[in-house]
């Protein structure tokens, strides 16, 4: 099984974003890295200057580089960005909205976790149109993962295995709203929360996390102990979604579990030290509420 590093969903400073990818290139045992801005089109220009350097460094390190498209496309600027991405030569695009498919592309592409692939017929439809990799929506249970991976042996099926789980996207910016700002004049306050703004219940229980127009889970997907199940299901790759923690160490842990160099239970214990204070969850895979931790 391979490892994929998903796009940074948060608004990290451009330099931090660049340095993070440089270190991933040099040190992280991942096979594929998804770059670019998927959440908010207003943030995209910040990365633009550093993107070529990041891509070059990742490719020089032998990583496959994939460029993420936006999740929600509504403004003219966003349509333009999407069209440009799909018409760019020599890059692999990860489609996060079906808008991308309106721009035909004879080159292979990937499907991201924000496209609704819930069954083998939808996966087959996308594969016939050129999708060679599909990262399934995080809420899919194992039975669906198995059915899709079994039906499409030629398509690399990926599962969301680490990181706060993206749960919703809106036209409204909840970060701006919390700061009593409008989306148009947001002052990029989301930069203050490199791991998302915590949303607790009125009892103080961790529940959700706000990242601009996106809502994520408070709990962190942690599928280390499910690796044998995912392997049997025919999953080709595990997605690690960047959080504000040592992602090189996270990738190394997953690599060691895949290589059976470390027991999953021990790996989970260490994961808790690398990314402390955030409960691990795997409920979605087991058909339980997403926040649940099944089998621990």
């Amino acid at each position: 099984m391979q490892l994929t590093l998903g796009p940074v969903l948060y608004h990290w400073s451009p330099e931090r974003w660049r340095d993070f990818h440089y270190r991933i290139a040099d040190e992280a045992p991942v096979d594929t890295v998804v770059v670019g801005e998927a959440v908010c089109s207003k943030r995209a220009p910040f990365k633009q200057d550093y993107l070529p350097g990041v891509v070059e460094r990742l490719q020089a390190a032998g990583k496959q580089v994939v460029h993420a498209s936006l999740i929600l496309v509504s403004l003219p600027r966003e349509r333009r960005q999407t069209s440009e991405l799909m018409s760019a030569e020599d890059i692999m695009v990860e489609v996060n909205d079906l808008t991308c498919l309106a721009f035909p592309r004879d080159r292979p592409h990937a499907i991201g976790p924000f496209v609704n692939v819930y069954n083998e017929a939808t996966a087959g439809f996308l594969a016939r149109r050129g999708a060679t990799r599909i990262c399934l929506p995080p809420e899919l249970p194992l039975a669906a993962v198995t059915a899709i991976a079994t039906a499409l042996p030629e398509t690399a099926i990926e599962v969301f295995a680490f990181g706060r789980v993206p749960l919703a996207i809106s036209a409204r910016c909840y970060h701006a709203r919390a700061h009593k700002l409008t989306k148009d004049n947001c002052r990029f306050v989301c930069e203050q929360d490199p791991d998302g703004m915590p949303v607790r219940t009125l009892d103080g229980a961790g529940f959700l996390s706000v990242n601009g127009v996106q809502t994520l889970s408070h709990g962190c997907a942690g599928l280390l102990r499910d690796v044998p199940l995912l392997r049997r299901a025919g999953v080709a790759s595990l997605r690690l979604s960047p959080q504000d923690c040592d992602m090189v160490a996270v990738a190394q842990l997953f690599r060691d579990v895949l290589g059976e160099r470390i027991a999953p239970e021990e790996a989970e214990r260490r994961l808790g030290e690398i990314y402390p204070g955030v409960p691990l969850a795997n409920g979605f895979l087991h058909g339980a509420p997403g926040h649940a931790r099944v089998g621990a």
Partner: protein
Amino acid sequence: MELICPAGTPAGFEAAVEAGADAIYCGFRDETNARNFPGLNFSREEMRRSIAIAHQRGVKVLVAINTFARAGALALWQASIDDAVDAGADALILADLATLDYAARRHPEQRLHVSVQAGAANPDSIRFYAESFGARRVVLPRVLSVPEIAAIIRESACETEVFVFGGLCVMEEGRCSLSSYATGKSPNMQGVCSPASHVTYEERDGEIVSTLGGFTINRFGKGEPAGYPTLCKGRFSTPKGSGYIFEEPVSLDAAIMLPALRAAGVTALKIEGRQRGRAYIAQVVRSFRRTIAALDAGKPAPAAGLATMTEGQASTVGAYRKTWR
């Protein structure tokens, strides 16, 4: 502009016909439709009979088969499509690429509408659905402003349908798994959001506390009406303060936006609420019928007077005004 009305039961269906609906949308009693609540929706026979009644009165019926088909169980969704076509549906409302692809190939003459669950929010995405499946209409997600809708219509060959009254989704529909995270029941897979089976109300220290899937969604002080704990309309706590961080418990009421929506070129206006009773359907449909008639006659629209039908007696025009964002 056509008036599209909800029906969760044959009785609600007849109420919508009586009240002046141009078309009614409804679904089968199973997980293939996105309002899969207990005691709601239509058996095959009820669907056939209701469609016959509607057609006698010149009313169209749009059958919603708008969840995402369960892997390994596509036959259930395909059977719903075949049965709806067989029962005489005027259009199918679909969201999943698998169901759109099946319907377009198996029933090439059948009119297909793209469900709001498909999240088609721009002209390119709509073009993809029109070109791939021959979709004739798209139901737009509740994240667009009126100028954005007007721009979509200018560029699209597809008809557009927009929500004007009822529940307000603040997340893009079809791409929200908040409910699934809290309860294990998913809008996309099981057709439910914030399901009643996972709701509790309890009294704590003189306050009413509502929970969903064990998470506190709201607390109500003395005398404050305890609303339903719809997840995205709860009170939560953040480092910037506590409150309704996503949206207040309000309903969508876009009656005052009707002239603008009409000028934008919207084909159809949709009322939400397949889970609501006959009285709701009758009153809301009549009110919007009057408003549309006034607009058609070039007269000022009468006040809707629907406050009692809204959540918490509060309403918003939501994303139709850009300031909402």
